[in-house]
Structures are given as structure tokens and as C-alpha cells.
């Protein structure tokens, strides 16, 4: 089932790469409370990625493990959304990126709990609750920073200007995922648009933010066309497995 392998890998890559990004805050967050909250969220995402990689490895049946898939591919083989690899920037940018992603994944997983695929169903049931919390946590910060001090409002607006152009790609279907949507295994991404628009609209209204026009939407992650930042992320993330192949702990 090559389409299912590809589609599961896409979802796994989204969660691993964004999870790794969040984990970069560990020890660097602006306050102790967030220093725990951000790695908590990172671990939610990495936990989901592990289950999906493990499933993808079984589907492939070529003896690769979840670790091989996570750590031993090259940049062009990663299929994650571009928004997941965007640098952390400041706290405003990190929180907005999390909100954009989670506001999509919450209804997506909620729709996937009826999937005929038992693994997808299992992941969905757990992940939809985690994503609901990410929306709440990131959303409350976006509201407070957007409608906060002069400095925080300016940073939040800058984050929207930087990241909004990556949101269109979230709703795109790859050839693999389109095939699975047709079979009823995965929910249609475009179907999440109304829910996403509603949540972002409510939060932006409270945060005094406006969604900008996007003249040049950024896309390409599903085809392995990434920005220059992913290579740096992979260099750090893969270092241990590359330097000490097969290392375990």
C-alpha cells in the first residue's frame, strides 16, 4: 500500500519536525512555566510521530524502523509542511505557528476517529485532545500578545506577516493523501477550512490582528522542496544517529 505509506509519512514528518522545533525552546523559554509547557507540547507531537513512523515502517515492510525513518533520510525525502520547519523566531512567532498547525489538526483528527484504519483511529482519538489543548494554550498567548503592549502587538503582527503565507499549504492534498481521502481512510484537508477559519477568526478578533492578503502562497513541502532552515534542523536532529549509528538509550 504505497499511498498509505506516503500519507502516513507526511503526517509523521509534520509532527516530528514541529515537535523538534518546539523542543529547541527547552531551557530557553521566557519563563519557567513555558519552559515546561513548550516541551510538553513537543512531546505530544513527537509521541504522535513515533506511532505514525512505526506504522509506516510496518507498511513499507523493508526492515526499516521508526528511527530509520525519523533520522536517516535526507532533506528532500522529508514531506513535512513548510510551516512546521519555520524557525522559532520569537515567542510570538512560535505561538502563532503552533496555533496555525493545531487549529487544523484538531478538527482533522476529530474527523479521522471514524477512519476504517485502526492505527489512524487510535492516533486520532489521542491526538485530537492534545491538539485541543495546543489551540487553547497558543490561542490565549496570541490574544494576550496581540492585544498586549506596544512591543508585543508589533511582534505578533510581524509573526502573522511572516507565517500566514505558509497556511494555504496545510489544506493541500498530496497525490497519496488524495487517494486515501477517496478511499475514506483520511479526512479531506479542505474540509477543515471552515473550522480553521472560525477558530483563527475568533482569536484574531480578540487579539486585534488581521489576516493579511497572501500574494505568494508558499508550498512545496509535500514534494520535498524545503526552505534553507530544514537542513540545519536535520543536521542537529540527526547528528547522534549519523555519528553513532544504531545508538540507543
Amino acid at each position: 500500500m504505497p499511498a498509505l505509506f506516503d500519507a502516513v509519512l507526511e503526517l509523521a514528518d509534520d509532527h516530528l519536525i514541529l515537535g523538534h522545533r518546539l523542543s529547541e525552546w527547552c531551557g530557553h523559554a521566557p519563563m519557567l512555566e513555558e519552559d515546561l509547557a513548550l516541551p510538553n507540547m513537543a512531546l505530544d507531537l513527537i509521541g504522535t510521530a513515533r506511532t505514525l513512523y512505526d506504522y509506516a515502517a510496518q507498511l513499507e515492510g523493508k526492515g526499516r524502523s521508526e528511527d530509520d525513518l525519523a533520522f536517516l533520510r535526507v532533506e528532500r525525502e522529508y514531506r513535512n509542511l513548510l510551516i512546521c520547519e519555520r524557525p522559532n523566531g520569537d515567542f510570538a512567532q512560535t505561538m502563532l505557528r503552533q496555533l496555525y498547525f493545531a487549529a487544523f489538526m484538531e478538527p482533522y483528527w476529530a474527523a479521522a476517529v471514524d477512519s476504517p484504519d485502526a492505527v489512524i483511529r487510535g492516533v486520532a482519538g489521542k491526538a485530537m485532545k492534545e491538539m485541543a489543548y495546543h489551540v487553547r494554550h497558543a490561542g490565549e498567548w496570541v490574544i494576550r500578545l496581540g492585544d498586549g503592549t506596544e512591543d508585543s502587538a508589533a511582534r505578533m503582527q510581524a509573526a502573522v506577516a511572516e507565517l500566514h503565507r505558509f497556511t494555504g499549504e496545510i489544506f493541500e492534498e498530496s497525490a497519496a493523501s488524495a487517494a486515501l481521502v477517496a478511499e475514506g481512510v483520511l479526512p479531506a484537508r479542505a474540509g477543515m477550512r471552515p473550522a480553521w477559519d472560525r477558530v483563527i477568526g475568533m482569536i484574531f478578533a480578540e487579539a486585534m490582528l488581521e489576516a493579511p492578503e497572501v500574494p505568494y502562497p508558499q508550498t512545496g513541502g509535500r514534494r520535498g522542496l524545503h526552505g534553507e532552515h530544514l537542513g540545519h534542523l536535520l543536521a542537529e536532529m540527526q547528528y547522534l544517529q549519523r555519528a553513532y549509528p544504531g545508538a540507543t538509550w
Partner: protein
Amino acid sequence: MAQETPLWEVFIRPRNGLSHKHVGSLHAADEVLALQAARDVYTRRGEGVSIWVVPSRAITASDPDHAAETFEPTADKIYRHPSFYDIPDDVGHM
């Protein structure tokens, strides 16, 4: 940070039927973020089913300097402990 961001006391109910118990404190800008921070800081290992957060400044504490007159007078009033009654065996454990 600590000067601008208020301090909150966190109370967790470990399971239904038990009362909320003080577990610690944290900094947060308001009550909504305080609840979220409490969830992230104090319930990561399944410690509870309910959280209260209270502004630390809302708590009035007894003065340690008054401990002698506040607490020590009870030390010799053992008759206040209900341990001098004969309880019929049929009543069982109380």
C-alpha cells in the same frame, strides 16, 4: 518577570472524592494562563482531575511570630481527641 507577573497558589484534587491540596505556586499574567501553567507544571504525571488557582496575595497567613500563642495552647488538651470512647465491636472501624 517576577516583579511584573503575579504569583498564584495551585491546588490539585488527586481524584474525585478527595479535597484539593496545595501543591505549589507559579507565575502567570492572569487566571486563564495560571490554570494552563498549573496544568503544564503540576499535572504532567496524571496527578489530578481538578485544578484551583488562587492569587497568592488573596491568602492571609498566620504569623510565625505568633506561633506560641496560636498553636501551643492546644498541646496539653488531649481530651479534644475523640479517643476516650468505648466503641462496641459491632460498630467496626471508625
